[in-house]
């Protein structure tokens, strides 16, 4: 069980926060991360329209053979994405905690511009605290 990475994608599909934990993930440039996040945003928008039984929140989990992506979509369109091992079963609760930290440390901070990359020390330290248990 391991958590490898966290992305925050704004409602326009831009990557506003990206952080890796441990060295489980291959190293990518920030441009590559931006492209991946934009692609995921598009895929998510498609999955939200595929539901046969009315409206849907879109993909919640996308999994591969060795890892999975857990996606939390907030009512305002911001997406929190957690990259974890397949066996990780705390992804949903971790994402809820991340959402809470985002609401506290980012949205209530007068020096943060909405929809722009998150450069808030308070958020960094809250995330560190969540990930270390």
């Amino acid at each position, binding site marked *: 069980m391991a958590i490898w990475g966290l992305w925050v994608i704004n409602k326009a599909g831009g990557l506003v926060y990206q952080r890796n934990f441990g060295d489980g993930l291959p190293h990518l440039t920030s441009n590559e991360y931006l492209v991946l996040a934009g692609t995921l945003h598009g895929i998510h928008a498609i999955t939200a329209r595929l539901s046969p039984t009315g409206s849907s929140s879109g993909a919640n989990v996308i999994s591969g053979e060795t890892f999975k992506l857990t996606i939390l979509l907030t009512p305002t369109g911001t997406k929190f994405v957690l990259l974890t091992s397949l066996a990780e079963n705390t992804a949903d609760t971790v994402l809820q905690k991340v959402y809470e930290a985002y609401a*506290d*440390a980012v*949205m*209530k*901070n*007068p*020096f943060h511009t909405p929809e722009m990359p998150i450069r808030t*020390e*308070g958020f960094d*330290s809250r995330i560190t605290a969540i990930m270390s248990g």
Partner: protein
Amino acid sequence: MHAAPHPRFSVLSASAVQSSEHLSPAASSTRFSLPSAPSINTNATASKPAVPRQTIYDRPLNKIRAAEVSASAFSFLFSEVVQYTQKRVNGINDLERRLNTLGYRVGLRVLELMSYRNEATAKAPKREIRFLPALMSIHTQVWRAVFGKPADAIEKSVENADEYMIIDNDPPITRNISVPRDMSQLSCSSFTAGIVEAVLDGLGFPARVTAHNTPTETLPNRTTILIKLEKSVLDREEALKT
């Protein structure tokens, strides 16, 4: 004492000055005459003489102690206050001064309301005339009224006899604020400093109050409210010493 309107009100529109005039300690020479309770209750007591009605001045707005103002709602409001102010100033000093001015307006009312609630019904109403008891009451009473907890420490400067400090280890109003690195001297607790300055001013201890970040390893949000007293206050303290 001050004939002209207090310079602090210069940032307000003319109508706002007018409406706040009667609350301003600077506008009147009888600063501390507490309104006698019957004069407010005249109407109520005239119709129903047996039941003296409580006014909103007599009790806290929230009926139960636990039902307090939402910290989140206040955080968002304060965040907007800082953003609004930041758009209209040049530089950090200006921003801190403006926040101080806003806090001053809160502090005036806090003192007014606190003295009314605590002393209006007392048989022998009192007010602090010595500095240290006044500082203690700010540390505990004012902090409790405004933040719901007393401040963490009071210190006296070793270098300057006219400097005192109130220390809060985690000020609730700046808990969610991360100041960017290029503005690292900025302390949004200047708002709190304004409250303290107004209370001291209202009690007759004119002082210059500023806020400073003094983080420690375990307390990253630790903030010091620095009080620099005017010389007249120190002279009077000296004279009162027997």
